[in-house]
């Protein structure tokens, strides 16, 4: 994959921080195309498996793409490199987006994608760090990831490693009290090397978050818990990249004397993003498309990328 230097990121600080193994960071346009590829993978995987969670995989596709193809310091040839950035998909049910990103990034052969949820597959129904190269943490029970990330961030600092820890949570998931335990603790230890990204796709399993358990302003909550919170359009690649790169750069910048607030990115997204009949439809939280539906979806995604 070659990159047009004219469209390279200009921020020198972030470019210096990013060591992307074999790959130079992608441009926004390239990232958008990659996100399309990943969306296609998601549809194909879930259709083949006839099970899985398309909605929350698609909504997070831009965030995960930006992380794996530009922002994170990783080396797919060395998945256990101690200085690598860590990624945790706390909303583990959305793992198809993660599996696709890892495969596209070269952690394992893309042919594995067709084995999702099959017996003996390396791709489990929920992320399993012991089975899949590149998976930094097992997930599936909602509400663990931010705490795990906090532990990774503490461990990094204690061992003098300057990696960054990225945790993606769901907007339903933040109803779990354990998330707020972690939210309270991260500022206490000034964990600027930890970034939470809430995929606010407005839907959870049973319906709209607003109907099930309205949260009011999530940003207000994170700020009240001591975080720097910012809201972005989580399906706008340029906005996503900017927010992530600033979060990473900020990890070395003290917010006020002696303290460093972790950053929470409230990413407003559309559940099922990219597939019109799935967008903002609760039913597609955990339902697999049939073959015809998948064809339709792939068509749409490809056309959007080409256009």
């Amino acid at each position: 994959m070659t990159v047009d230097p004219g469209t390279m990121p200009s921020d020198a600080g972030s470019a210096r921080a990013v060591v992307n193994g074999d790959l130079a960071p992608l441009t926004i346009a390239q990232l958008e195309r990659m996100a399309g590829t990943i969306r296609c993978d998601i549809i194909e995987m879930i259709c083949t498996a006839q099970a899985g969670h398309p909605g929350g995989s698609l909504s997070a596709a831009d965030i995960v793409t930006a992380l794996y193809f530009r922002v994170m310091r990783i080396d797919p040839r060395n998945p256990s490199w101690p200085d690598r950035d860590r990624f945790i998909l706390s909303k583990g049910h959305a793992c198809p987006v993660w599996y696709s990103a890892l495969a596209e990034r070269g952690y394992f052969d893309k042919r594995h994608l067709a084995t999702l949820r099959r017996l003996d597959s390396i791709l489990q129904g929920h992320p399993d760090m012991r089975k899949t190269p590149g998976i930094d943490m097992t997930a599936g029970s909602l509400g663990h990831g931010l705490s795990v990330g906090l532990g990774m961030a503490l461990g990094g600092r204690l061992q003098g490693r300057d990696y960054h820890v990225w945790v993606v949570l769901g907007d339903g998931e933040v109803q779990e009290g354990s998330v707020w335990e972690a939210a309270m603790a991260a500022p206490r230890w000034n964990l600027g090397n930890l970034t939470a990204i809430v995929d606010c796709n407005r839907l959870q399993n049973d319906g709209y978050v607003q109907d099930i358990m309205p949260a009011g302003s999530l940003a207000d909550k994170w700020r009240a818990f001591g975080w720097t919170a910012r809201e972005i359009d989580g399906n706008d690649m340029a906005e996503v990249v900017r927010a992530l790169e600033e979060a990473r750069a900020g990890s070395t910048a003290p917010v006020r004397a002696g303290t460093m607030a972790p950053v929470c990115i409230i990413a407003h997204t559309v559940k099922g993003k990219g597939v019109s009949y799935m967008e903002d439809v609760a039913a597609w939280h955990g339902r697999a498309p049939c073959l015809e539906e998948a064809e339709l979806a792939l068509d749409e995604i490809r056309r959007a990328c080409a256009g």
Partner: protein
Amino acid sequence: MLASVTHYIRSDVLKLLEDGSLLTHGAGQATRYAYAEAIVDVGRRDPRVVVLDVDVAKSLGTTAFAEAFPERAFNFGIAEQNMVAAAAGLATTGLIPFASGYAVFLTMRALDQVRNSIHYPRLNVKIASSHGGITPGPDGPTHQGQEDLSLMRAIANATVVAAADPLTTRLATSAAAAWEGPVYLSFTRDPVPYLYTDDYPFEIGKAVVVRDGLDATIVAVRDMVCQALVAAELLRTRGLSVRVVDCHTLKPLDAQTILSAAEETGAVVTAESNTIIGGLGSAVAEILVENYPVPMQRIGLRDTYAESGPYPDLLVKYGMSTAHIAAAVENVVERKRARA
């Protein structure tokens, strides 16, 4: 060839048992759905019943209750601890909350609340728990409630029920509502066959002999009862007469039915898709050694995590298929004969 004498087994099931196709061709329903249907009826009869959910109402089907009785349904979002402790609070006001969700998260995420705010004060809360055992195959270990029977059995004041088919799940739901005090109900994610006739005498705490036999007994629970019936039929063709006990209530355990089976058949196999540690197998082992020690073997998830895959394939790969049950029965019969 031995004849088989069964009790409360539907005639269509008997035919499918004979031609060996019950597990592949039997009509069935996930017991989570049987619960969701039953609780609407129960709620209609008893206005004290309220249903609590944790963002998996659609997965259980308890949305039907919410539609029928909107003011008596509360969805707590993804907050199992809050739901379980709030259920305790609701129970103190005279209501009968059915707190619904997935086994892993109800019995682990909220276990402190389950124990300290429901069971210690003996509050009248029912925990309605889907995805028991390894029945949620493709979701993988994080969603496979392989410990729920073990964990709940360890809790004092618990009543633990795991019915084997849709009919008895309905009866269990209704019996739980009538029972004074906490009840834990464990359901399957995947379908299990309709097994029983309407005259099945469901009573909490009373195991039911659903097949007679004298050479050995299989004590089974939840989704493994149908497997036990198939295994018993298989063994009949090999000349063994095997009793099958549907032990739907793990606690209080029906010691009498199990001890009679031990005395009369002299060899016992337990079958559960729960871990073999702490669940049905341990319950039976405990009363055998304390009362009437006979050779026994446990079939269950052998102290490991399974993986993603179709539920029937997992049963085979992880040692809980009908063939495994049958082999275990032959083993205990052999051990019994060696002792004689």
